[in-house]
């Protein structure tokens, strides 16, 4: 949203931190529901004071009362956090919960995928950012369908711009086992780097870290499974560039890979420990790290 006022921008960023922090709390609370309802209240809950990062803004949009008309900033934040809203349940072996799904579905109606992915674009083929958005929407759509069912009146699973999603709710859920082609395999899709170009590819994978969750499987996941070294090189590069959020996201993919039983060329735990002490302290990064650790726990149980 390049035209957003700075204050609006701050408000949206604070909302993302609030939602990520709440998800993080749920994850640390042994996999309960995200319980976003308190986020809708007039004041951020006192437990948020313990969350790292900037104080949540209390702009006018954040003061809407009740769950009927959530502020746009919250809905936007739900779009940003996306599939990770369900991380506490999925990592705890539970299904996506309906209250969270209803909120996310509402967010998708207010910020529909096409608007999100076409924003600021011309009429040409979708670029890499659009592909990232489409894949995140695919993941959210799969989880929404799982939480709410695919019947009429349920959430509208997002329609992706190019390869990942082919429209209907049913096909989105089916694509968990029959995924759409990977962007990299789409002929002429120059916007999507090949894993051999590990620098650019790993940055795209970092942007897709929300897909590294139990119960999601598609072309992106197949590519991740096939290229642990490219993921690891990307993580090491991000660490050395002090891009700790990208490093956290790639560490999460590595943790996911290990949970898949894939041998890694790199120890993930020391990276997570390092990022924890040097990163920006945001709830978003902390959430990435917590999910990575939970995935490693899954891998430990598996072994």
């Amino acid at each position, binding site marked *: 949203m390049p035209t957003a006022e700075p204050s609006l921008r701050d408000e949206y960023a604070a909302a993302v931190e609030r939602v990520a922090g709440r998800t993080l709390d749920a994850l640390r609370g042994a996999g309960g529901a995200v319980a976003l309802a308190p986020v809708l209240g007039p004041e951020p809950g006192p437990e948020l004071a313990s969350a790292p990062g900037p104080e949540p803004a209390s702009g006018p949009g954040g003061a809407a009362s009740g769950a009927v008309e959530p502020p746009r900033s919250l809905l936007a934040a739900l779009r940003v956090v996306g599939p990770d809203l369900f991380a506490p349940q999925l990592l705890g072996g539970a299904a996506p919960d309906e209250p969270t799904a209803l909120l996310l579905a509402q967010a998708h109606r207010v910020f529909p995928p096409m608007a999100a992915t076409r924003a600021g674009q011309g009429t040409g083929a979708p670029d890499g950012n659009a592909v990232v958005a489409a894949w995140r929407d695919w993941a959210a759509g799969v989880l929404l369908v799982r939480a709410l069912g695919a019947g009429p009146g349920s959430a509208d699973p997002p329609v992706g711009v190019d390869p990942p999603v082919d429209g209907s709710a049913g096909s989105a859920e089916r694509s968990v086992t029959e995924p759409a082609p990977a962007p990299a395999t789409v002929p002429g899709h120059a916007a999507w780097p090949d894993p051999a170009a590990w*620098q650019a590819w790993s940055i795209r994978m970092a942007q897709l870290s929300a897909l590294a969750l139990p119960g999601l499987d598609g072309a992106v996941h197949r590519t991740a499974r096939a290229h642990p*070294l490219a993921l690891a*090189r990307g*993580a*090491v*590069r991000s660490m*050395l560039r002090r891009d700790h959020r990208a490093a956290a996201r790639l560490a999460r993919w590595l943790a996911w890979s290990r949970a898949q039983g894939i041998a890694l060329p*790199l120890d993930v735990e020391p990276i997570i420990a*390092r990022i924890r002490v040097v990163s920006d302290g945001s709830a978003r990064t902390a959430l990435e790290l917590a999910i990575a650790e939970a995935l490693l726990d899954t891998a430990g149980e598996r072994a």
Partner: protein
Amino acid sequence: MTDHEVLATAQRIGSRALAWLDASHETGFGALDDNVTIDIADPNNAYKPIGECALAASLVLREGVTGPADADRARRMLAFGWAQLRDGNLLYERQLRHMLMTDPLEVYAHFVRAGYRHPALEELVRSLGELRSVHAAETAPNRRLAIANARRVAGLDHRGPDWAHLTAATWLGATPEPWALDWFTGYDITHTVFHLTDWGARPEDLPEPLRAYVRDWLPVWLDIWLEVGQWDLAAELLVVDSCIGEPVTGREGWEALAAVQREDGLIPRDNAQPVAEEPEQAFKDHEHTAVVAVVASTVTLSRALGGATAAVG
């Protein structure tokens, strides 16, 4: 098989860097003061560069992959250095006075590679090698490898160093977290590979776990130091790539060096500060990077051509 464009770029970079070093010597840069003593006040001023230029030149002659003009330049650089060292007498006297110093042996080894000998120095180093003190001196692990390789090249390693033990003590030998390193460690890594493989002559002497480790992470390290414009370390990483068998880093490093090399052959050691306008200062500042570029070019070309010969033979 190495990309032909990479080889052409490498050849051009190395040849121009060699020409710049040689021309600088011909201009009178890089000479020791006439009144220099064995207690060299600032070894980095001219003494160390003499050894580095001898290294590059000796590898040009050892590998034999350059044209006759570059071979002549290499021979001229070695003759220049040997003359500066008073035909090796300066090394002998320095070693005689400072029995725990290792630089006389290390500098000497580069000349030995090209056929220069100083029998008295060899006898001195051999007898000092009998002292437990010499082997007990507290030295960084990758420096111990440098000394061991110098003894090997000079034929003075009759005690048979325990390469595995020496290697295990290095940073690289521990195959640590590849993101937990700094600029200094970068040089520790490159020098461990240089000395273990004798600058690419023995790629198989880098133990397999270390080779696999380097092959995994070298592309990342090169990417990082190219991004920050540390051309000297980036060039050393290209040498490493040529010393471990089939290269793993592609063309980005070579193209970056080609882009920053000046017409006269100078390669800035980094992009942190501009090259000095005064030519002698520029030589002092950037001589090492030119040496590294000559080594990287020479060993890369040699390994690629050797591979081709093996394939058809």
